[in-house]
């Protein structure tokens, strides 16, 4: 395979940026902000270069870069990207500068540390999406917990300590089991091939040969770790706390990118490494996914806190993604991948918007607001667009993902029942209920709270600058999704071919 260091450069940019930032003086807050924006902007530009030099028609990983790292364990620094990786890398580098820009005013204490953490977080996220060595993957996966822990714990709300510890321990718990599975895999590889290896591409060949009983345990160990991250019902209770307590930028990154690491892990590890187990557990996982769709929506409906409402809606939306992955059809997985991006955009936008009024009023309760469409019309329009995108209105992005997922799941052979889709599709109704109800109570009617008239001001130029790129993508994906679907088509097909080559006899 052709080697290319492009991806390594991409990781190095935010990494170097965060190192350099240590040399800055805390009092130069404005300079630090601009520097952070510059660095993350640079990373975005480089990821665009990667996007344009990526050949979507070729199967396999491109821009691979392999350097032997730990000789005795045969662990390498091995990165590479297929279409799915490229898409999620783009999402990461797209969201990061926007969150930095959104924190321009809201983060006033320890700006230097905050910017360092955000850039460091970007390193971890990018690493996760490009690692082709499971040991390396595990490092990035864990590394990324640290900045997030601090972001919630230092810049969060009143209960930030509880939330950050809960977040940390929940995820840590899952990861440990994954680590055990990783070690077991490496040992197994040395038994089969004679050499210890953690290289993903090698393990793709070995994983499916593991005896079914053991394979199931391996599968479940990986799954638990990813399911917590997604989060899949009933492992979701860290999410509302983390989201509500995190600063806006943290929530946006959390919803926009971090949760996708779970679903990405399922696609990258669970399916190809343990295809037989994936096929066996597909109905079980899909049941949890569908429960999550409905449960998340119903609980979102009765929330009194706007941020918590959006947080629970994530449980519902990610349920769609998991359903799409385990339906194991091309339509549904393509839908799941695009839905990862969609959720990042629409939920990201919702968190940004909730954060914008919070910055002005320091209140998140729905009941504090009422009739504000009259006071802040531009803001109201922006919230309407973000809500409609989240509701899945055709013509906007959310529809494309949900439609493909449900369409594919309906004819899925691994699920082999319409009930998944029949129940899952009710999420379409409930999404309209909880978002429009929130919208009605916050924006419509008469202005109920006279304080709002002085507190609220409409979106300023900086906030528009953050939101408009997201809205452009929301419409773009809604009208012309081919740009993105073409990118992931071949990668999706190769995952499916790989899985079906091992499971074809299981279906009958």
């Amino acid at each position, binding site marked *: 395979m052709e080697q290319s260091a492009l991806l390594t450069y991409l990781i190095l940019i935010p990494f170097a940026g965060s190192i350099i930032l240590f040399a800055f003086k805390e009092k130069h807050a404005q300079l630090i902000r601009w520097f952070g924006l510059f660095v993350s902007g640079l990373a975005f530009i480089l990821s665009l270069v990667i996007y344009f030099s990526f050949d979507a028609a070729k199967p396999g990983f491109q821009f691979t870069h392999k350097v032997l790292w730990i000789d005795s364990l045969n662990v390498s620094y091995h990165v590479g990207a297929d279409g799915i990786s490229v898409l999620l890398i783009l999402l990461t580098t797209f969201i990061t500068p926007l969150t930095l820009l959104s924190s321009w005013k809201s983060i006033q204490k320890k700006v230097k540390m905050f910017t360092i953490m955000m850039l460091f977080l970007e390193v971890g996220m990018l690493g996760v999406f490009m690692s082709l060595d499971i040991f390396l993957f595990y490092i990035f996966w864990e590394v990324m917990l640290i900045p997030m822990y601090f972001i919630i714990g230092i810049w969060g709300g009143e209960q930030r300590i509880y939330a950050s510890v*809960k977040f940390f*321990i*929940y995820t840590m718990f899952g990861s440990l089991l994954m680590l055990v599975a990783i070690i077991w895999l490496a040992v197994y590889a040395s038994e089969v091939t004679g050499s210890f290896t953690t290289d993903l591409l090698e393990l793709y060949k070995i994983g499916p040969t593991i005896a079914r009983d053991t394979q199931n345990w391996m599968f479940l160990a990986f799954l638990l770790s990813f399911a917590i991250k997604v989060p899949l019902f*009933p492992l*979701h*209770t*860290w999410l509302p706390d983390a989201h509500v307590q995190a600063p806006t930028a943290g929530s946006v990154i959390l919803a926009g990118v971090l949760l996708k690491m779970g679903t990405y892990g399922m696609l990258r590890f669970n399916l190809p490494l343990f295809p037989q187990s994936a096929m066996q557990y597909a109905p079980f996982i899909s049941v949890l996914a569908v429960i999550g769709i409905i*449960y998340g929506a*119903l*609980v979102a*409906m*009765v*929330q009194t806190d706007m941020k918590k409402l959006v947080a629970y809606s994530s449980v519902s939306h990610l349920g769609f993604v998991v359903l799409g992955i385990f339906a194991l*059809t*091309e*339509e549904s997985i*393509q*839908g799941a991948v695009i839905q990862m991006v969609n959720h990042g955009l629409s939920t990201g936008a919702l968190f940004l918007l909730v954060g914008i009024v919070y910055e002005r009023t320091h209140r998140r309760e729905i009941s504090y607001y009422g*009739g504000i*469409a*009259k006071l802040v019309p531009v803001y109201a329009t922006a919230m309407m667009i973000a809500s*409609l995108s989240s509701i899945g*209105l*055709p*013509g906007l992005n959310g*529809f*494309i993902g949900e*439609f*493909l997922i*449900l*369409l*594919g799941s*309906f*004819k899925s052979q691994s699920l082999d029942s319409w009930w998944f*889709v*029949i129940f899952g*599709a*009710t999420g*379409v*109704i409930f999404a*309209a*209920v909880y978002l*429009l*109800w929130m919208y*009605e109570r916050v*924006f*419509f*009617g*008469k202005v109920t709270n006279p304080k709002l008239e002085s507190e609220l001001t409409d979106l300023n130029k900086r906030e528009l600058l953050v939101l408009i790129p997201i809205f452009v993508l929301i419409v773009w994906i809604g*009208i*012309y*999704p*081919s740009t993105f*679907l073409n990118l992931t*088509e071949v990668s999706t097909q190769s995952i499916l071919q790989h899985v079906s080559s091992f499971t074809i006899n299981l279906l009958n």
Partner: protein
Amino acid sequence: MIDYIYLTVLLPLLGFLINGLLGPKIKNEKLIGIIGSSTVGISFLVVLFALIQTVGLPADQRTNVVELFTWLNVAGLNIKFAYLVDPLSLTMAMVVTGVGFLIHVYSIGYMHGDKAFWKFFAYLNLFIFAMMNLILGDNFVVLFLGWEGVGLCSYLLIGFWYEKNFEKGTVPQAAKKAFIVNRIGDFGFLLGMFLIYSTFDSLNFLDVFSKAEYFPVSEATFGLIAIFLFIGAKGKSAQIPLFVWLPDAMAGPTPVSALIHAATMVTAGVYMVARASIIFASAPAVMTVVAVIGMLTAFFAATIGLVQNDIKKVLAYSTVSQLGYMFLALGVGAFSAGIFHVMTHAFFKALLFLGAGSIIHSMHEEQNIQKYGNLKKYMPKTFITFVIAAFAISGFPGLSGFFSKDEILWYSYANGNLFFWIVGAITAVLTAFYMFRLVTLTFFGKERFNKSEKHPHESPAVMTIPLMILAFLAVVGGYIGIPEIFSGEHGNVFHNWLMPVFAAADRKMAVYGTHTHLEEIVLMVISVAAALGAIYAAYIIYTKRIEVANKTASKLKGLYTTLFNKYYVDEAYEFAVIKPIQKGSEKLLWKFFDVKIVDGIVNGAASLVDVVSSVIRKMQTGVAQFYLIIMSLGIALVLFWIILSL
């Protein structure tokens, strides 16, 4: 012009963008109104020329597809933004752009002085954009784009005056209700699409329909697809049990009620069923369901209409009822009769609503017909056009409603059975009665309002001219569909025009028994005579014998209050569906399951670790001797274990 049909989609979109983005800066109402109206007006001309061009083609070449670009291309799914130009879509497009244009013009007068005048026109244009996608889309997904798009516009426009109260609740609540009930229907529609895709491997109309005719697909599968699609149609077209949103939709400005909630959007369900006629025709059992639901909706909505006092409410229930007729027609396989009624209904019902708007305007937002009276004196143009529409909807011979309604009644008997006809005919009588109750209470008798407070006046020309054009259409619109009994074999122009679209469905359906012309004449005479009697009775009762109405109401108090409260359907939904879901989600799912169970386990595990470690911690005494004892014990245990396992 067929090749340029996409202009009818793009122009309204352009109008939406211009008025939506620049509206607050333009400020000039006239300019905003002209921009909004002209995009629809030009679209109408494009449709007209495309229609003329299509008429000029031989009957078997009248189906053309105009492709723009690929929307979704995943695995076997290939969805294009492509528009299907055929007799059915052209007919619908003529109505939507034609009536739509008139209502845009009328709105310039009606919305004059509103602080969000620009927004109103932006939304109206967005609606036309979505509606044209719905009608012209060459596949189910583009249709669905329009389908949900019109739902959104309906939501935005019902909630247009979002600060106001509406009946027991608020305007935004009515808007939300419309959107959500529609979404319940959309849920069915989605499932229908999934089943179509998994059955036919396509969602493209021409592809699916040609396969539907020849593929060996079981009747059960057809039945399920048809049921799913019909659930979708019920939501959009307000049929039992999903009709509850439409009366509340009257919270929106009256031109919206005319355009969206009478003439165009609510007929989308009828259009969709007609478009998928081959699927429905392949599922005879579902056809019967469609007919029965249509019949029941027509009847029950009409009974509610008898006792309502809000002028828009009467018209809303009338719309539900007329939509029921259309489904009755579809259900008995008279697809072109259903579409014919869509068209004539668009003329006279839009006219009735715009007339109502004109009245409400001049009566300072008063909507209670009990507080009107003798308005014919003050607003003659509104009066004459309104009465024409009332006669048309009542099926007065020679007017448009006569031809379309009579055709439906006839087919409900000829293709269906006598029972369908009887309920249909009774509904026609009820329709005539409630319409003329409305007309009489509004325009005749004495003024029942305070003349020193209210000064009714005729509306400006920008509003009355659209009324007159619609009145003209309500009179002559029926003559393109003169039934064969009068026009001779194959003399029904409208039927012949749509024939190629429904040919496959006609082939599929069973051959029906033949009926004589005499039967048709007799049934027609009976229903018309009864309707005329009802008109006369309504006029007499509400001008001279008002005590008859009051006595009947007090004598049948139970029935009256049941009807007045719309059979308590809203209350039943609130009690049986909405409250349980809300309470259950809050108390059971969130506060119990999430907080107590899941977090209980999580936090419990954490405190368990805490407790255990606080116990173990005590062993860390710092006394070296203690550690030594423990160590020796450990070594002993290990040794013991090794010895045992030897």
